[in-house]
């Protein structure tokens, strides 16, 4: 039953076999075509643009970016929060949905985890980029020094250092642990010497004996349990970078749930942006089915509603507080100089996703691809709104001013997308981007005799 090579076109009634899952996913690791090289080249070009811009900024100073009085945090922190948010969704899909035993996560969670790790790698660059004197970055770390200095542990910026570093470490570990059995599958199916060596080393000699599986399933459960509070806490800590200040528009207790919901929203959209082309190019139609997209769209609808509610709450709180500065800020956002960012955000995050209530659109992949890009633009604009708009219109007129975009800003943002894209492009070609083992786990095990009764 299982190991015959079948050239028959599969129908929906014919269930997936272990062999088919192996072959479909391992086919993704075949020798790359010119298209893959082209994609890698485009990403490397973008990285080059980013590197050039950053070098210029290091040599000439932070004034090369758009940051100046009063917007002391500009698009770099916006993009930082954007990438950290995207990262959180990957851990939600892989760890949190694992604990909830949601089957729809199976084909997408490996890609989501990869997205997490690479997004955190990208986000981690921005605290360095937005520092003028990058060479002093190590001052953020608690290390014994001859000036007897220690960092300020009461500052949310330092909590952020611990939170994002922990998140990077734990997500990478979780990712690697999940990959080990799949790399072993790739190792045992590999033909070329280089691949056998690469997979032999990275699979750590995994054989899948009963003891290994026992410890593995236990450890995986604990990783999922540890990573789950990270999803909530790390983005809450990032939100506290703003909420723990007294800037009007920032000092709000709604920030942690607002940011976490926004993170999941943008992350699921990014997963959709990635998986639609990958599914089409690598022929994963039997593994990533329309019902998975339907489930992801429902998550999008949920988080979009939470976000809409959070925006309304912010406005309501500002009005109800009778605080003139808070009210001024929330008048400035929709009707001030930078209002286009606000209305763009409202359209992309709140109004556009409403069409997903209509079921046929939830499984229309072209529409979903465009919608996911719209959502990500909207989420970047949301962070821009929060950060730049608040800083542009603080308490007194001296603190009012516009943000001046510079080409260095744009170059670095493009570079960050290129950096993320580069890692994803390399990953999908060298390591299994779909979890072979877990998909096989949800298939019924091959039995000679039909199972009588259920466990």
């Amino acid at each position, binding site marked *: 039953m299982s190991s015959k090579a079948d050239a028959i076109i599969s129908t929906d009634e014919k269930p997936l076999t272990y062999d088919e899952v192996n072959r479909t996913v391992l086919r993704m690791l075949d020798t790359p075509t010119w298209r893959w090289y082209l994609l890698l080249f485009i990403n490397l070009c973008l990285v080059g643009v980013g590197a050039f811009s950053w070098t210029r900024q290091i040599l000439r100073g932070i004034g090369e970016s758009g940051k100046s009085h009063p917007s002391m945090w500009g698009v770099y922190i916006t993009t930082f929060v954007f990438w950290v948010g995207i990262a959180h969704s990957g851990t939600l899909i892989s760890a949190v949905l694992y604990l909830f035993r949601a089957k729809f996560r199976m084909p997408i969670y490996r890609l989501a985890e990869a997205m997490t790790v690479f997004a955190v790698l990208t986000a981690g660059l921005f605290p360095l980029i937005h520092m003028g004197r990058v060479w002093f970055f190590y001052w953020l770390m608690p290390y014994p020094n001859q000036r007897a200095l220690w960092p300020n542990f009461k500052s949310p910026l330092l909590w952020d250092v*611990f939170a994002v570093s922990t998140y990077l470490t734990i997500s990478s570990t979780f990712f690697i642990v999940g990959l080990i059995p799949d790399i072993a599958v790739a190792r045992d199916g590999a033909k070329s010497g280089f691949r056998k060596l690469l997979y032999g080393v990275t699979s750590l*000699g995994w054989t899948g004996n009963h*003891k290994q599986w*026992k410890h593995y*399933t236990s450890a995986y459960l604990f990783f999922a349990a540890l990573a789950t509070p990270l999803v909530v806490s790390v983005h809450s800590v990032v939100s506290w970078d703003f909420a723990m200040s007294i800037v009007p528009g920032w000092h709000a207790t709604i920030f942690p749930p607002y940011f976490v919901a926004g993170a999941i929203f943008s992350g699921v959209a990014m997963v959709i942006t990635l998986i639609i082309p990958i599914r089409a190019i690598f022929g994963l139609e039997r593994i990533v089915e329309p019902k998975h997209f339907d489930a992801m769209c429902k998550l999008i609808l949920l988080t979009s509603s939470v976000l809409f509610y959070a925006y309304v709450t912010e406005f309501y709180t500002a009005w109800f507080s009778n605080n003139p500065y808070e009210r001024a800020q929330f008048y400035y956002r929709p009707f001030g100089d930078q209002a286009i960012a606000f209305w763009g955000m409202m359209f992309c995050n709140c109004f556009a996703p409403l069409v997903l209530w209509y079921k046929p659109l939830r499984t229309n992949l072209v529409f979903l691809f465009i919608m996911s890009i719209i959502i990500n633009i909207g989420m970047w604009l949301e962070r821009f709104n929060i950060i730049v708009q608040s800083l542009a219109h603080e308490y007194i007129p001296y603190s009012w001013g516009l943000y001046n975009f510079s080409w260095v800003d744009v170059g670095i943002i493009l570079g960050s997308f290129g950096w993320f894209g580069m890692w994803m492009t390399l990953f999908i070609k060298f390591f299994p981007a779909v979890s072979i083992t877990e998909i096989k786990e949800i298939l019924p095990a*091959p039995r*000679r005799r039909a199972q009588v009764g259920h466990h």
Partner: protein
Amino acid sequence: MASTKNYRAVVGVFSYIDDALEAIKRARLEKLDFRVYSPVPHHELEDATMPKKSPVRFFTILGAITGLVSGFALAILTSLDYPLRVSAKPIAAVPSFIVVGFECTILFGGLATFLGLVSLCRLPDVFRKLGFDPRFTQDKFGVVIGCPGEQVDDVVAGLREIGADEVQVRDGI
């Protein structure tokens, strides 16, 4: 106990999980050592081979507790060493340090779990691949039974009768 010099490993390659379970059951009845390879974890295989809980959880809890203590210790002791008065908070402001303590708990807990996994699974596994066949990660189940030389034929016959696709006999403990 008979000397182990004559020990052989009989490897049964199975396509179906119920055959593999039957082979495990028989190996248990005959009180023979066995090892089972499978492409996926399965609760029936787990119940048949290792019903007790895995000790990974001890690594996790110890790591988490170490992390909690270390996180708070780092924040409190460094605050006392370099006292900074920040917005009328006490020098060692424990509520402010909850985030640092929590993150260190998760960090150390996760790393300890990874260490526990790697050490209990004996990874990197270079020398212990007894009876392993590359098909066991693809789609076949493997039951490797260790027995003295005299019993090899019986074991081979038993595995064939259960429905093994292939039975190999290898040296080794």
